[in-house]
């Protein structure tokens, strides 16, 4: 019982992070039919921006918690701005070009951001200072759950719920869904599709920045290539849920986190990735379009 609860919380923590990052892949794909390969790097950029903010202004101690909140705000703002810039510089000029050109541009942008992080920050592992947040541990039926885990789970679920409400119950959210279905028809409604595209490059990276900074705070270290690792996991989560589908990315992220944790807890931590991916392949064999995915029609 203790192991089960422990792994469930571990899984929800990591799953919440995957889900936050996966949303950026799925929203951009939904509107543009493009995998933004630079998304993972943007998210980890968020972790570095947050870390810089904490180490340059943070005195630790009782100021820690407030500092962490400011670090999140800074990370979100910087990464959202980088997202808009990325769309303008790397994707908009290729809007009417061959799809492959945009993919190559995405890969190039990924390398640019990754190496940019290495140059600006460090080619070594950067460590988050300790004592930023309460170190309280909750004991439930033999499992120990840290304050940081509770925070990550709570914040990621609140953000996901907020996004869900925004997309499904506001005028602009409906416009985003409409543009994802049919851009020309959306234009005929009076929707400015460029603005919709810009908005997904704000929302996706903003959520991703929170996810990236969570990675740093949870593992207490960041490294410039981590964008690729976490980006890949989150991308797989988006595929698992059904790429282009927003609730799908949330479910996919949480499930991937849970698979990972239970595989590590009950089977073998060195085999956790192998077991996770075997399960994923199984699910995709049964549902090739992902859990909530529909047949993705080729755009004409």
């Amino acid at each position, binding site marked *: 019982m203790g192991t089960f609860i422990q792994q469930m919380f571990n899984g929800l923590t990591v799953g919440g992070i995957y889900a936050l990052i996966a949303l950026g892949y799925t929203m951009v794909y939904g509107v543009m039919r493009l995998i933004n390969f630079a998304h993972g790097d943007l998210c980890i950029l968020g972790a570095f921006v947050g870390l810089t903010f904490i180490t340059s202004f943070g005195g630790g101690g009782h100021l820690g918690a407030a500092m962490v909140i400011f670090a999140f705000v800074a990370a979100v703002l910087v990464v959202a701005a980088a997202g808009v810039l990325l769309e303008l510089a790397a994707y908009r000029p290729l809007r009417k070009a061959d799809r492959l050109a945009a993919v190559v541009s995405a890969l190039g942008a990924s390398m640019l951001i990754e190496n940019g992080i290495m140059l600006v920050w460090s080619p070594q592992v950067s460590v988050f200072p300790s004592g930023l947040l309460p170190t309280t541990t909750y004991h439930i039926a033999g499992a120990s759950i840290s304050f940081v885990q509770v925070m990550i789970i709570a914040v990621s679920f609140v953000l996901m719920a907020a996004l869900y409400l925004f997309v499904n119950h506001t005028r602009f959210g409906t*416009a985003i869904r409409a543009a994802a*279905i049919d851009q020309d028809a959306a234009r005929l409604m009076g929707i400015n599709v460029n603005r919709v595209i810009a908005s997904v490059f704000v929302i996706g990276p903003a959520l991703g920045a929170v996810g990236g900074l969570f990675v740093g705070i949870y593992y207490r270290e960041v490294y410039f290539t981590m964008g690729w690792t976490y980006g890949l996991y989150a991308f797989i989560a988006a595929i698992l849920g059904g790429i282009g589908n927003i609730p799908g990315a949330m479910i996919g992220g949480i499930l991937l986190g849970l698979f990972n944790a239970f595989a590590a807890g009950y089977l073998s931590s060195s085999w956790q990735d192998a077991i996770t991916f075997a399960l994923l392949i199984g699910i995709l064999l049964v549902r090739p379009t992902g859990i909530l995915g529909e047949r993705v029609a080729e755009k004409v």
Partner: protein
Amino acid sequence: MSLLQVTDLRVNYGQIEALKGVSLHVKIGEIVAILGANGAGKTTLMRTLSGLLTPRSGTIMFEGTDITRLGADKIVRHGIAQSPEGRRVFGTLTVMENLRLGAFTRPANEIQESLDFVLDMFPRLRDRRSQLAGTMSGGEQQMLAIGRALMAKPRLLLLDEPSLGLAPIIFQGIFRTLREIADSGVTILIVEQNARSVLKLADRGYVLEVGRFVLEDTAKALLTSPEVQAAYLGGAEKKPH
């Protein structure tokens, strides 16, 4: 006074010159039909009027304003809405969400009035309001596409082949509703392959052939014109059922 005045419009579609200098006008309160075979350029014309395509040359004046190079989202705000070819409803959204999107450019407090108007015109949509648009029949989707365009409260309604793929009994019902819509004060420019039905509805018509207008006349005259008879009405008039 002309509501819409198009002068010498030339539009390329890829490498092909799809419209080779097209001029037309639509007066307030008219129903104007554009006839033409597949590939004549009818849809290119409609897409250009809505701002989805940019013309190479020529002008489009609407209510005295030059809208030739405005984007599609701006043109809706000027008062032109379109029900596009193939309906293009948002299939995974509900009927209600589709209709509300049609009113995207409108202030929130005016939407209910348009909604009542549209649901009175197409009572079928009222019953289906929470259904996903993609699960409805072709006729119902066409009603939705027209209703969605009306939600913008346009002064000019563009209709691109509303009869496409529909059984005669269904589109005859839709054409009767188009008459009511016109009577409510909306000017209509309609592209159709179904020449007989549309000419009975319209006041005037143009015949488009490979990017040029070859005929322009009152709908009554076009119905009896030998060229139109031969090319679009399949010879002698058939008995409607």
